[in-house]
C-alpha cells in the first residue's frame, strides 16, 4: 500500500528543530535499516511539507496532490490532537485512511536543545504512525449487525421524579413508558400538603405533572411492578407484572425513579402508645386537611414539639436524610400560621438546610416564631405522660441541663430509607450501592448516570431528596436519556453507529469518518472465559449460550479493557487492535 507523509512545519516552529529534508532523510534511513531494501513495508513513498496543514485550503491542496500521486493512506504529522490534530484528521479521514502523528508538542517543542535526538525521535514517531496505518488497512471492515433500537425509554416509578422525567422525555420527543406499582400516579406527592418553595399542595402538583405526562402521550402502566431488568445486547429487557399478567419488553434505556421508603418511628419515643406522639407524615396529612377546610384548626396541637433525627443518624440509618429538616421547618411555619395562639419548638441535633431555597425557609421559620433548641444526642429524649403525651424531656446541648418542654404533640421527624425492591432492580442492572444502601450514580461528575450505557437514576432512589430536587433530577435524567436516545437514533443497523456513551472521545467527533466500530470478538478464537465481561466498565459484553462473546455496540465506549484482558486475543478494538499497538511499539523500539 502506498502511503504518504504530510509534514506540517507549523509556520516554521516545527521545522526549526526538525528541518523537513533532514527528517525525510532520517525517515528513509530509518525505514531502510529497519526493513532492508526489499523487506516488508512500511515504506513511505511520498513526503510533502506544508506550512499550515490546519488551514482548510492547505490541507485540501495537500490531500489532492497526495491522492493524485496514487497514495492510499496519509500520515499527517504536526501539532497535538487536542490542538488542531483532531479537526484536520477528521477532514483527511473523510476521503482516505488517515493517521495523525504529534511531532510538535511531543517532539519539536520540547527537544529544541537536542536536535539529533529530536530528529531520531521524530523519525520513530512517523514510523509508528506508518506501521499503524499499515495494520489498520489490514483490519477487515465488516462490522457485525446489531439489533435495531425500540425507541422507548422505561421510567420506573410514578412519583415526582418519575413524572417529571417522563414528562420531560415526552416534550423532547422521546417515547417514554411509565410503570407505577400503585393504581394512581403521584407517589409521595399524594400524601404531602403544601410544598416548599412554591407552596402549592402535593396533590395539586401531582395533578399538574400527570396532566403533562398524559397530554404528551407517555404510555402509563398503572399497577405494574417491574420485577427485573436485564441488560441485553442493544438495550434492556424488563419483566413487567401488570394487568395483562407477566410481560417481557425490550427498552433502549431505563430510568430508575422508584423512590424510597419513609421510616415510621415504631417502638421509639412511645409512638403508638401515647396519643399525641406523631410522625411528621401524619402531621403533614392533618395540616393538609385543615388547609383544605376538611378539618378545624383547633384540632391541631397548640404546644407542638418537633423532634429531629428520629431513627436517623443512628446505627440502623447512619446518614442524614436531608429531607426531614426542611419538612419540619415547613410544617412548623404552617402550624404557626394555622394556630397563631400556639407554639412550635424544634428540638434538633443540628439543622441541615443548605442551598438558597432552604436557607430562605430557615430564615422564614425563625422569623415566624418557630423556636429551635438543640439537644445532646448522648442522652435520649423522653416523651412524658400517661395516656396523652404531656411533655418532652431532653438535655439541652448549650447549657447541659435536663429540660422538660410541655407539649400536647411530639412530632417525630423520620428519614427515608432505601426500598428493597429498588435495590433488587439496581442489583440486576449491576449498579453499585453506597454504604447506606442507596443506588449510586457517578457523583459528582455524572449525578444521574450510573454507567453511561442507558441507565439513569433520579429522585429518592439515589438519595433522599425534597420534591423540588426530585423534579430537577427527573428532568436531568430525561435530558441525559434523550441525548442517549438521539445517539441511538442514528443507528444504521451495524456496529458502526455512534457510540452513545457520553464523554468519550468519539462523541466529540460525530462525523461518519471518525466513527470507530465497537470492540469485536472473534468467535472462533474466543474461549468463553468471560474475563472481558467481568472487566468491561459498561456491561457491553454478553456471553450467549452457545457462541463466542458478543459486544453490544451501543453500550461499548471503545475503552479497550476487554482486549487488555482477553487471553486468546479474541477481543479487540478494530483500528486499535493488538496488532496495531504491537506495530507501534515495535517501531518505537527498533533502531
Amino acid at each position: 500500500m502506498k502511503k504518504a507523509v504530510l509534514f506540517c512545519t507549523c509556520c516554521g516552529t516545527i521545522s526549526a528543530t526538525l528541518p523537513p529534508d533532514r527528517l525525510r532523510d532520517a525517515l528513509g534511513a530509518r525505514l531502510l535499516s529497519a526493513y532492508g531494501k526489499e523487506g516488508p513495508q512500511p515504506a513511505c513513498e511520498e513526503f510533502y511539507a506544508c506550512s499550515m496543514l490546519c488551514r482548510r485550503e492547505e490541507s485540501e491542496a495537500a490531500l489532492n496532490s497526495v491522492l493524485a500521486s496514487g497514495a492510499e493512506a496519509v500520515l499527517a504529522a504536526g501539532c497535538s490532537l487536542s490542538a488542531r490534530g483532531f479537526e484536520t484528521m477528521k477532514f483527511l479521514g473523510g476521503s482516505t485512511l488517515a493517521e495523525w502523528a504529534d511531532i510538535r508538542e511531543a517532539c519539536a517543542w520540547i527537544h529544541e536543545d537536542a536536535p539529533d535526538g529530536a530528529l531520531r525521535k521524530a523519525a520513530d514517531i512517523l514510523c509508528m504512525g506508518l506501521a499503524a496505518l499499515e495494520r489498520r488497512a489490514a483490519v477487515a471492515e465488516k462490522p457485525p449487525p446489531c439489533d435495531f433500537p425500540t425507541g422507548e425509554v422505561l421510567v420506573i416509578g410514578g412519583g415526582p421524579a418519575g413524572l417529571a422525567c417522563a414528562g420531560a422525555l415526552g416534550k423532547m420527543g422521546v417515547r417514554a413508558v411509565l410503570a407505577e406499582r400503585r393504581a394512581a400516579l403521584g407517589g409521595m406527592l399524594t400524601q404531602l400538603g403544601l410544598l416548599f418553595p412554591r407552596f402549592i399542595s402535593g396533590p395539586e402538583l401531582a395533578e399538574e405533572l400527570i396532566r403533562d405526562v398524559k397530554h404528551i402521550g407517555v404510555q402509563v402502566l398503572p399497577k405494574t411492578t417491574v420485577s427485573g431488568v436485564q441488560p441485553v445486547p442493544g438495550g434492556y429487557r424488563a419483566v413487567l407484572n401488570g394487568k395483562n399478567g407477566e410481560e417481557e419488553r425490550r427498552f433502549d434505556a431505563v430510568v430508575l425513579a422508584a423512590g424510597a421508603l419513609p421510616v415510621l418511628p415504631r417502638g421509639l419515643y412511645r409512638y403508638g402508645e401515647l396519643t399525641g406522639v406523631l410522625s411528621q407524615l401524619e402531621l403533614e396529612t392533618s395540616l393538609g386537611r385543615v388547609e383544605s377546610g376538611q378539618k378545624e384548626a383547633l384540632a391541631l396541637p397548640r404546644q407542638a414539639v418537633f423532634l429531629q433525627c428520629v431513627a436517623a443518624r443512628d446505627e440502623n440509618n447512619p446518614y442524614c436524610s436531608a429531607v426531614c429538616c426542611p419538612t419540619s421547618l415547613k410544617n412548623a411555619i404552617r402550624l404557626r400560621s394555622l394556630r397563631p395562639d400556639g407554639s412550635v419548638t424544634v428540638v434538633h441535633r443540628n439543622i441541615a438546610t443548605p442551598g438558597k431555597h432552604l436557607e430562605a425557609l430557615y430564615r422564614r421559620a425563625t422569623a415566624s416564631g418557630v423556636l429551635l433548641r438543640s439537644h445532646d444526642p448522648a442522652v435520649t429524649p423522653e416523651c412524658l405522660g400517661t395516656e396523652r403525651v404531656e411533655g418532652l424531656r431532653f438535655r439541652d446541648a448549650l447549657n447541659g441541663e435536663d429540660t422538660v418542654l410541655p407539649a400536647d404533640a411530639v412530632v417525630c421527624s423520620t428519614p427515608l430509607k432505601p426500598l428493597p425492591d429498588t435495590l433488587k432492580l439496581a442489583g440486576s442492572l449491576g449498579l453499585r450501592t453506597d454504604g447506606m444502601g442507596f443506588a449510586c450514580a457517578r457523583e459528582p461528575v455524572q449525578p444521574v448516570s450510573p454507567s453511561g450505557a442507558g441507565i439513569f437514576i433520579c429522585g429518592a432512589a439515589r438519595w433522599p431528596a425534597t420534591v423540588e430536587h426530585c423534579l430537577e433530577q427527573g428532568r436531568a435524567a430525561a435530558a441525559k436519556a434523550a441525548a442517549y436516545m438521539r445517539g441511538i437514533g442514528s443507528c444504521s443497523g451495524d456496529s458502526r453507529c455512534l457510540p452513545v456513551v457520553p464523554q468519550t472521545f468519539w462523541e466529540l467527533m460525530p462525523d461518519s469518518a471518525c466513527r470507530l466500530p465497537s470492540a469485536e470478538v472473534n468467535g472462533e478464537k474466543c474461549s468463553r472465559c468471560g474475563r472481558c465481561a467481568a472487566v468491561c466498565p459498561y456491561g457491553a459484553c454478553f456471553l450467549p449460550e452457545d457462541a463466542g462473546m458478543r459486544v453490544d455496540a451501543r453500550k461499548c465506549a471503545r475503552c479497550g479493557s476487554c482486549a487488555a484482558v482477553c487471553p486468546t486475543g479474541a477481543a479487540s478494538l478494530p483500528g486499535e487492535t493488538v496488532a496495531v499497538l504491537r506495530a507501534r511499539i515495535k517501531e518505537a523500539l527498533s533502531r
Partner: protein
Amino acid sequence: MNPSLKTLVFACRWCPLLGAERAGRERLALPPDFRLIPMECAGAVSPDLILRAFADGAHGVAVMGCHFGGCRHNGANRSAHTRLQLLSAALEAVGIRPARLFVSWGTAHEARQFAGVLSDFQARIRALRKEKDLPLLRGNFTPGHDREMRP
C-alpha cells in the same frame, strides 16, 4: 545521556496525554528518549503488551492514567491497576526489575506535573542502567538476573 535509551509512555488521553501536550505547549525541555503512545484508556494497556515491549528492548515502560474515581470509563483504571500490580510480580519472576515499570494514576495532568513525573522516571531508568551494566534481554526471555539491561 545515552541516546539509545528508550522509554515507552502509555498515556491515557484524558489526563496524562493532556499533561504531555501542555508540556509541549509550554516548551518544557525534556530528554528525547521517551516515546509517547496515546491510548483511549489506560485500561487498554495489556500486561502482554508491556512484556513484549520489554522483550523488544524497552528500557522502561510507563503507564499513566486518570486518578482513581476520575476515570472516564467507569473505573477501568482500577482494574488496570490490579492487573499491572500482578504484572510487577511477574516481571520479578522473569528477571526484569519491576522498577522499570512505572504505573501512575492522576499525577500528570498538568504540564509541569507530567514533565516532573517523566523526568523522575527517566532518571530512575538511567540510574538502574548505570548501577547494573548488564545486557538487556532482547527478543526472547531468558530468565536470570544477569540479563537485566543492555548497555
